[in-house]
């Protein structure tokens, strides 16, 4: 399938690994649209999410890899295989683009007229969202199969932010949903919905997130292949209007979610629920 990747930063590991994996599966990457590496909102978000020390370490490893080992250069160890598939580690999107021969457009606004014009010129059948701006209607309607997102929770139960943490705290099974984005927050039609069975192996919320991100990339590949083969059709979310939106979780509640994670026992029933 002819694809475009939407990214929050050229240095996003998730974006690089997604692009690399989709190319490995034989999809054609028509291009990528990314926010700049020094985008203020992204930087502030990462500072808030990771803290100053971890953010600085990440930036140092990406910009001046020097004597850092591969393990030190990769924040999410479960993405290492995807990032290293061609030998040297992909440190940014430009390196993935050079290896797989697709253009990268850097823009401060993925919804801008220039961005929309570029996207149209690439004629993608689908776009894969790995981060960036809140997407508006003109952009969402350009690719034939829409803009696809891997959401780290089961939809429609848990929409919005801190979704694995909220799943744990609310007692909702952990899961990943591949859905077609619409103007709402995680309210678009569902392509694939899977419970996440590896949670019992996770020692921390960070480890859980890392594993889920890696699993989400694999599920995205599976969904795109099934969509291309006509084996998958989007299912409209049943209670689209009901407010299942969640917001960034406070650290005190995260600590409780982590405690819930450690208390988990293997679930024999974990498996596919849609798609």
């Amino acid at each position, binding site marked *: 399938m002819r694809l475009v990747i939407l990214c929050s930063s050229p240095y996003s590991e998730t974006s690089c690994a997604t692009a690399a994996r989709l190319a490995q599966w034989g999809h054609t990457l028509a291009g990528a649209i990314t926010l700049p590496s020094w985008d203020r*909102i992204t930087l*502030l*978000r990462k*500072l*808030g*999410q990771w803290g100053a020390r971890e953010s600085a370490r990440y930036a140092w490893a990406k910009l001046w890899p020097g004597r850092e080992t591969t393990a030190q250069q990769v924040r999410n160890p479960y993405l290492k295989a995807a990032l290293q598939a061609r030998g040297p580690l992909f440190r940014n999107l430009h390196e993935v683009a050079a290896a797989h021969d697709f253009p990268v457009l850097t823009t401060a606004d993925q919804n801008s007229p220039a961005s929309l014009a570029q996207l149209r010129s690439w004629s993608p059948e689908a776009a894969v969202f790995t981060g960036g701006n809140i997407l508006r209607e003109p952009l969402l309607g350009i690719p034939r199969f829409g803009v696809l997102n891997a959401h780290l929770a089961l939809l429609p139960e848990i929409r919005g*932010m801190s979704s694995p943490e*909220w799943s744990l*705290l*609310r007692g909702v099974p952990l899961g990943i949903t591949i859905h077609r984005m619409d103007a709402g927050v995680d309210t678009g039609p569902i392509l694939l919905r899977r419970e996440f069975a590896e949670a019992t192996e996770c020692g921390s919320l960070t480890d859980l997130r890392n594993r889920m991100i890696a699993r989400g990339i694999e599920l995205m590949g599976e969904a795109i292949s099934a969509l291309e083969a006509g084996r998958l059709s989007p299912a409209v979310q049943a209670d689209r209007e009901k*407010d299942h*939106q*969640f*917001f*960034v*979780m*406070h*650290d*005190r*509640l995260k600590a*409780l979610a982590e*405690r*819930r994670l450690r208390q988990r026992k293997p679930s024999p029933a974990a498996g596919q629920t849609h798609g």
Partner: protein
Amino acid sequence: MTRIEPSSSRDISMDRTAKILREAAGLLRGPQRIVPLALKLGSDALGTKIEPRTLYTYAATSQPTENALRSVMGWILRARRRHGGIAAFYSLLSGYSEPYPEVTGYLIPTLYDFAHHRADEAASRAAEQAARWLLSLQMPSGAFPGGLHGLAGGPSIFNTGQILLGLVRAFRETKDATLLERAVAAGDWLAQIQQPDGSWSGAGAYQGVSHTYYSMVAWSLAELAATGGGAEHAAAAERNLDWVLSQVKPGGWIDGINLQGYPFFLHFIAYILQGVLETGLLLRRKDALESVAHSSWVLLRKFEIGKRLAGAYQPGFGGGMKFACLTGNAQMSCVWLRLFEACYDQRYLNAALKMNEMLKQRLTVRGPGGVVGGVAGSYPAWGAYQPLRYISWGAKFLADALMLELRALHSLEAACAS
């Protein structure tokens, strides 16, 4: 918070100008306040310029809640004036105000809560002293006067309601029959002068008209009914609740704040919600809880998405003035925490934790006693709500919010452990 006020817009404007000039003159009498004033203005100016607001704003603990609580309660205890009444505010221009009966009344439950939480004898004694002082102010009708102490205010419906909250709590703690007797007299007066539709208007009402934030009065009557008062007090509370609920719009906005000359400050919006919620809980009115949950969710979304609540809104929660009404924020935290306790939706607790985080970051840690641990009327300090003042009802609602947070986390942690 209500006062006996002039009625026309021109009178209101003149009255406000006179107050500003009077307060500004206080700086001449107390030049030692110039440095704290300059520091506060400077830090707020800097803070509003450079503070980034992102998805993760306020999602981490900056200082332990227990420390912040001790600091706020320290401010409240230092604000006590002669005979146990508590000052309305500490002005950066003129220092402490006279004691304020209304706020002294509803600070009594806060003082007792803290006394139990920390086994603090001083807080317990302060609550009892405050209750005794309030009894000395009661009018033969059972009503309490409006305004600051010493200004010879007439009987005030709202202030009587808030003092009633304190008397009922003091009776529960001490079992002193005089307290209940006087509380019933206050409740009888409130029930007698209630309008047939359940609202309160006329001479004892602020600006003479009915207000939906008098749901706080209904709350006090419901508390009285649950603590030895009569069925007539519960009936009066229920009549007011019905009237307030009839003012709720489909989008969650509640009409009838009716404050001539003032914007719709978050403080008053939150008052309505607190009053309806607590009355609804006491009277077991599911419709009241659902209504508050609906309106509170609108504000929760605004806070989570915009990382702030406006100091005042237009009807329908539109518009929004840029300053923060810190008292209103603390009240909304209380509403969300009580909703969490009522319906166990952790999203309310999450929002309250973040709101409390923001409020803790606004507490001043250095300066004179009237500043340290105090809650400013507005952020920045020159905002439209109680500018350049640290207000006692702001400290009260923040202390309540912090204690509710500790209780909520304790219950959730216990649930997770089991």
